[in-house]
């Protein structure tokens, strides 16, 4: 008997020592990159990654990215303090006052998401080059060109917001590599060079296979944007090249203006022939917090849940700045189509009653008044309704976000023509875009060359519960052209760029905002970037 026990013990010890001397980790939620051999069916999933970065770049993981920064730092929309909050550490007010610092989430979101897109493009280019991703020789050239144009599109946002940024095009950098900073004009040259070289290699079709991706025409739209802002980026305008790039898109004959502007922003807008490049959204597939398009939740008051039979009650924040609404011609259908105003009703037609703050128990009717960025009630400010709000919509909307659309191509060409002395062409193009907006008074759709040089109708100046002032506006060249851009492209996350090009952004006042330094045409590099890369120099003024 004794021997048996000794044998058992001996066996256990032997088994124990010999069996488990290796580390064995199985993480069933991830794939180890080195051990994964992609098949051709995986290519789309692999190369699609940087396009997801565009979604977060436009909207940010906390919504504080390109769209919101371009909107609430400008003169059309604002996020005031609401009875239910929207203070959030004062970030929205600082954006309005132009008092932002390098710690703002906006700086961080735009920087990290743009560079995540760039790094993903670099990685994929490296992997394709190394044969790690199985692409056929036939598609390789086009795919590489697409990734380079896509990469340039991320640099476009970087040059627009930060100006002086590092250019990095390689993935396999040595450990600890710190990129160095390039000047804004060098970044400009790089983007132009990348685009002009690669656009001709892109697909020339415009159908489901290229929707949401860069084809040649989306590439030219991006190129036109670069040339349009060349004066801002380099000090030397380039209107002629802007017109050429716009003509490439126009002459493709693949795009047209929608008969009704609302079609471009419909819930199901993916078939719109006005869209040149869009960031696709879906209320199911892009529904998680970091990628959802939630403008309807951000702008409507909670009571509006009953208007649209939402599953959730909206959060009530962003609204129009009254001065901007006042610039609209009353016959312009964009005033009523794009802005939610007046008494609000339930889906069945009963009037909605306010339930927050001083207007509790009173009818919920949006009025074109706003005490200031630091104070508001539920009724204050017209709400953003340009993007169709579907009945029963979820927290995220399904409307694809049109980044470049045909009307924009026409308006870019119009502005470039106007600025290079061809006011007649400009007037024709602007009129072309306005045709669909004055059904009640079609004559008003027509704009003359002379009108485009008139001053803006925007009554700049402080206009809040603390102060009322009036700024001189005669110094704004082509003020009417700026107004036209505002009327057509309001809520499209671009106003800041237009105001900078027209010299208004850091010179005029609106609502509670006063100019706070010309250097604020650029954002500061985010604190985290400065802190982690000693090669980076902060932008002037910050």
């Amino acid at each position, binding site marked *: 008997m004794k021997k048996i026990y000794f044998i058992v013990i001996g066996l256990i010890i032997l088994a124990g020592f010999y069996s488990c001397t290796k*580390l064995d980790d199985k993480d069933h939620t991830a794939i180890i990159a080195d051990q994964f051999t992609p098949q051709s069916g995986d290519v789309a999933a692999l190369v*699609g990654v940087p396009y997801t970065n565009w979604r977060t770049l436009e909207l940010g993981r906390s919504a504080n990215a390109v769209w919101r920064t371009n909107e609430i730092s400008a003169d059309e929309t604002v996020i005031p303090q609401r009875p239910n909050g929207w203070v959030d550490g004062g970030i929205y007010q600082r954006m309005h006052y132009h008092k932002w*610092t390098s710690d703002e989430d906006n700086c961080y979101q735009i920087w990290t998401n743009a560079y995540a897109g760039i790094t993903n493009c670099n990685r994929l280019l490296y992997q394709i080059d190394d044969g790690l991703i199985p692409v056929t020789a036939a598609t390789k050239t086009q795919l590489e060109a697409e990734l380079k144009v896509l990469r340039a599109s991320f640099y476009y946002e970087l040059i627009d917001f930060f100006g002086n940024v590092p250019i990095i095009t390689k993935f396999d950098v040595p450990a600890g590599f710190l990129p160095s900073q390039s000047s804004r004009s060098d970044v400009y040259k790089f983007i132009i060079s990348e685009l002009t070289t690669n656009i001709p290699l892109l697909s020339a079709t415009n159908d489901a*296979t290229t929707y949401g991706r860069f084809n040649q025409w989306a590439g030219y739209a991006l190129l036109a944007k670069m040339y349009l802002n060349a004066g801002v980026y380099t000090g030397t305008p380039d209107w002629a090249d802007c017109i050429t790039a716009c003509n490439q898109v126009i002459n493709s004959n693949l795009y047209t203006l929608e008969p009704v502007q609302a079609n471009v922003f419909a819930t199901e807008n993916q078939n719109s022939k006005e869209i040149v490049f869009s960031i696709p959204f879906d209320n199911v597939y892009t529904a998680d917090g970091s990628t959802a398009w939630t403008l309807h939740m951000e702008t409507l008051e909670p009571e509006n849940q009953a208007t649209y039979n939402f599953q959730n009650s909206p959060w009530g924040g962003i609204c129009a700045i009254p001065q901007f609404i006042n610039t609209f011609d009353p016959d312009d259908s964009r005033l009523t189509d794009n802005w939610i105003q007046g008494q609000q009703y339930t889906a069945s037609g009963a009037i909605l009653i306010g339930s927050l703050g001083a207007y509790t128990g009173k009818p919920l009717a949006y009025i074109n008044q706003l005490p200031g960025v630091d104070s508001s009630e539920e009724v204050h400010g017209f709400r953003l309704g340009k993007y169709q709000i579907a009945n029963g919509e979820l927290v995220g909307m399904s409307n694809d976000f049109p980044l470049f659309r045909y009307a924009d191509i026409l308006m870019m060409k119009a502005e470039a023509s106007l600025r290079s002395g061809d006011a007649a062409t400009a007037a024709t193009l602007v009129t072309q875009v306005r045709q669909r907006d004055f059904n009640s008074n079609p004559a008003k759709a027509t704009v003359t060359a002379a009108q485009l040089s008139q001053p803006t109708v925007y009554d700049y100046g402080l206009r809040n519960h603390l102060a009322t002032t009036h700024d001189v506006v005669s110094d704004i060249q082509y003020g009417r052209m700026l107004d036209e851009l505002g009327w057509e492209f309001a809520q499209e996350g671009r106003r800041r760029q237009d105001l900078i090009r027209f010299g208004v952004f850091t010179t005029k006042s609106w609502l509670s905002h006063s100019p706070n330094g010309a250097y604020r045409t650029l954002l500061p590099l985010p604190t985290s970037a400065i802190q982690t890369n000693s090669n980076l120099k902060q932008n002037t003024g910050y």
Partner: protein
Amino acid sequence: MKIYLQNHFDWCKIMKITFSQIVIILIFTGMSYATTSKGQAVLQRRLDVSIHNLSLSTTLKQLEKETDLKFVYPKSLVAGETDVVVEAKQQTLGEILTAILQPRGIAYSYIGDRVVLSKINAPVTETEQRTPQTDVTTPVNNVAKTITGKVTDEANMPLPGVTVKVKGTAIGTQTNVNGEYTLSAPDASATLVFSFIGFVQQEIAINGKSTVNVQLKGTPSNLNEVVVIGYGSQRKSDVTSAVATVKAENFVSGPVTDAAELLKGKVAGLSVSNPSGDPNAQSQIILRGVNTIGGANTAPLVIVDGVPGDLLTVAPEDIAEISVLKDASATAIYGVNGSNGVIIITSKHASGNVINEVTYSGSISTQQISKAPKLLTAQDYRNQIAAGTRDSTYDLKSSTNWLKAISNNFPLSETSNLTFRGGNNQTNYLASIDYRFLNGIFQQSNHQQITGRVDINHIMLDGKLRFNLGILQTNFNDLPFNTYDYEQVFKMNPTAPVKEPNGSYYQEPNNFEYQNPVSDIYNTDQPQSSYRSKYNATITLLPVDGLRLVATGSYQKSGYLNQYFANFQNISTIRDAQDGVANTSNGQSIDRYLNLSAEYSKVIGEHHFALLAGYEYQDDDTFNSSITNHDFPTDISTYGYNNIGLGAAQKNGLDVISSSRYQTNLISYFGRFTYNYKDKYLLLASLRIDGSSQFYGAKQPFGKFPSVQGGWRITKEDFMADQHIFDDLKLRVGYGVTGNQPATGLGLLGVGLLGYGNYILYNGQWIQTLGPSQNANPSLRWEEKHETNLGLDYSMFKGTIYGTIDLYNNKTTGLLYDYQVPSPPNLYPYTEANVGTLQNKGIEVALNIVPIKKNDFQWTTGFTFSTNQNKLISLSNDLYKTTVPYFTTGNTLDPITTTTNIVQVGQPIGQFFGFKVVGVSSDGKWIYQEPNGKDVPYDQFNHAFSDKQVLGNGLPKFYAGWNNTIHYKNWDFSATMRGAFGFQVLNSQRMNYETTGIQNYNRLASSKDKVFGTAVLNTNMPQEFNSYYIENGDFWKIDNINLGYTFKQLRSKYIHNPRVYFSTLNTFTITGYKGNDPEVPLTGTGLTPGVDPRDSYPAVRTFTLGFSASF
């Protein structure tokens, strides 16, 4: 996909199968006691001895082998003594020796490290006792009297070998194996003296009685007791590291939530807090400060009966003792998991006494909020309306105290424990059933736990082969409380009714984040059940002299089933049109553990050596799944999670299904060498090598953790021989290295990983993209804590004063943190990396005094005091240097959403960082002080990052405790008091609910007060994180008071020593803090201590009535 580290062979796979089978067959195990304990306590040690017809000298030799003891005796003494027959199973050595030697007229005594045998010169006979010795005065009633009695220990176990003497005479005897004695006292007024090594000497006057039973108490500063250390035990006098042990009788009493709460205020340097009164919450533990900024382990490793476990593994009532290993030289043997100390829980075990016994203990208790928040009442609302500061629409014509509305009045909790002990010397068992039902102060908030446990010992082959088998099963059935419902208490309009006249719950769906908490509680059904089962086995083999082989294995399986249904009356349907929301989630985790060790000890002259070598393997396999659904066709509550497929949302792609699985393993080798010279100089050195699968792909997946300790027992030196102040004085010094690994859930950090992420629209179809999910860091390695400990153990005036003093200084290097890296070139702006050095140093003092030590009145008082100084020494990575030496962390949460803390080089962890307020203007607007000292009014203040400054620190600088135990006749009384000093608390409730501008939510009554006595806060001041809401947190708590009465005189054949007691927990707090309780969470993320969360379950005061008895 299976990943192997280098150097694996095919036969490994084959053997692994073998191993698994053996693990399953053997169903592994519990606690292995190293039994090299030398010393006097060895007389209490229980042995198995089977001797038949051997000579006495052979018998003694065999006992020497068994016990590592040396018997010293003249040969003549044992000559001719044969036919020794001993059949002892788990009897104490004292019992065995007495049984063998007493009949042969041989006495034994323990001197130094030896047992000295001598002839009982004058066997104490009655005849001789009647003969008065010289110098004995003859008392008045000089009548000899026969006294009988029984001597027992504190556990009522008989004590054999106790010397019983008549005071002032040479008359004496010893107790027999059953602890009984008989002697003749010269007169009825004589006094008996009971003495026994390791116990407090007791004197009892006969007072005419003929029976004198005595219960001896262990020497308080018992240096000879055995202390559990990592992978074994040591005599306390041999311990050379900072170890504190608390036994069951000294535990905090009452319905504690877990094992750690038993230690509250008992161990210097160990901070245990229960900031939440939630019956489902667990204790928070910090030992010697915050030692990591991003490592997985922020609390001590918990070892339950030799196997890694947690604080809920055993029911508190089943615990016999808890050891806390404090310094790294003690915990280095636990390697990668030892950097925050180790708590070793020893559950009650079967013992070899042939005593069949049933013990019952039970209690009922009730609770109340220790300090309830005061909110504006309905009358306050009406006054405000009358004063014009509130719109009349806010008066909803009712009057509700929302806190009362969600509370239970005096919730009753109960605990019951039934323990059976029995068996014989060869096989014995302990079985217990433990039932706990903890009822929270909020409605529908409770915790139910049923634990069954069996512990069986089996001994064979003359004690050379021992088996210990343990089976444990715990079932939990809980109703968790949503703290969001407590948040609503602060928001709800006090003029609103709980229910409308039509019987439906009052709701205001359009008021943002505002919902009737009573409705939430009753229209949400969320039962949660979970279980843990543990099988463990230890096989101990003692093949040759001095060698001990132990195999310990355990198989633990735990699982949970959490269900949730919010019915149609819930706000989720009323406001969000969800038509019922159901969730069912479940998961299981399987942990396997194997430990094989060999220990060899040898004595050569005055040199004692012991060598321990071992191998340990642990793996874990965790699986979770969850389904959420809504849009149910009907509000029949028996559907919901019971028929989750009925919801339409899942079919429409609107809800979530998920599952996940992780498998990890940890491989370890360890060794330890101990050396003892003359009991005077002590040395211990150990090494542990750990490899963790999380470091797969990293350059150094294995880490080495050495330690060395030395001890010097000064009182053993000749120059100390003549002093009478110190009984014992031992100087200890130790140095050790321990580790910490990256936070759990982060696997495979050393390699590039791909994961499926966001969707893209590709050719009209939404497809999921596949991309890198992290920045790989192949240089990732263990975080290492290097700790030096200097200690002094002292015992003075025959155990009247005793305690320890420890000084420690440690540095954690290679701090693991999700470090900000430059992007570009990195894809993600954060990489898990080793990024800096953190220092903790402090002093721990334990001082115990026994001011009164009389027969029927004993008073023991103990003080603990500890300090901790914490400092971040550096913050940078090998590859990337930061340009600023700090990062911010913590969050105030909605709606303020800003960071609360800064972690900065040269400063401690826990610094509050924000705007400093120095006053308010006459119109109630903040006046700030800029960091340069300049005062700025609200409207001119920038609120920029550069305007923030350090506003305080949330980590206490000092902890103190004062424990008192008093025994008076049958009464026992104890009181535990403790406090923490030198820290600040962020009062999030005040920060959120003292704002005057918010009308749609209620607020604290204190919002009516003038700020700084100047003015009420202006209604235009938004909620803000500033220094006004940071308060001093210093507190002194009279925590646990316990008053008990034991019916010792009860002479029942069936019931022994019944005891009733009354106790309180968290009884009374002296503090200037305005919130519920200044004892706020210190752990959590670890970097934001001292934040009193806005909505957390409030702390409670508990009253308990308990009863225990054995049968």
